[in-house]
């Protein structure tokens, strides 16, 4: 994949996450894709991740993936972004996240996600 194809894949992936397009996520994640989160320190499979997608929206009215800074390397990309959320209470929260992704044949094969769990309460509008 060249740089433009990798950037396009990155944008498609994040737009799909933002718009709740599980069908698109299903298409751009390789069958053997692994997702690792620094907060949990463990890997999940593509199917586990897709199955949990609806639950990840609980309590939230809207989520947008903004301020995307994308850099590519020969077999993947790194994206730094702000996840802005609006809760059903009207509370607005933001999380700063960095994802390193590996890509092959037009699909994402691995995602490593870095964020700060100490911001979760403020994100949801709970006690800070």
């Amino acid at each position, binding site marked *: 994949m060249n740089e433009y194809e990798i950037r396009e894949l990155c944008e498609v992936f994040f737009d799909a996450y933002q718009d709740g397009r599980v069908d698109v996520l299903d298409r751009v994640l390789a069958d053997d894709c692994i997702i690792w989160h*620094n*907060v949990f*320190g463990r890997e999940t499979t593509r199917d586990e991740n897709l199955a949990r997608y609806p639950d990840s929206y609980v309590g939230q009215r809207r989520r947008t993936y903004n301020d995307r800074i994308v*850099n*590519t*390397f020969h077999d*993947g990309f*790194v994206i*730094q972004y702000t996840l802005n959320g609006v809760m059903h209470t009207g509370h607005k929260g933001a999380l*700063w*996240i*960095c994802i*390193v992704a590996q890509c092959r044949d037009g699909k994402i094969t691995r995602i*490593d996600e*870095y*964020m*700060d*769990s*100490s911001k979760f309460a403020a994100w949801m509008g709970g006690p800070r």
Partner: protein
Amino acid sequence: MSAVDTRHRRLCHTLFDAIEQGDIAAVDACYAPEMTMWFNVTGQTSTREENLAALTTGKGLHRRRTYNDRQIRTFDDGFIAQYTCHVVAHNGAQVALSACLVAEVHDDKIVKLFEYLDSGKFGARR
């Protein structure tokens, strides 16, 4: 592997080795004068001088800090390092933090650093 890739990788290792060894002069040599660092835990951007001062202060806070499992990838004007920071406190307690550093590099000097880690793990000692 291109020359730029090799230089960026070397710069990344030089930075981590220097921090590990508490060699602040060597860290300074990796930075451009206008270097800034943004940290996801504080959401703040610090200057080169502030960063060097924090590293100097931080040297004595722990018995040992090592930057392991370095996975480095490079792009034209920077690099990404995914690593595990192993901290050994003076009382022997240990903690491992999985972190990611994104660096912007110009003329073989780091001009911007972005660090992402989970501060919720700070107290997770064993």
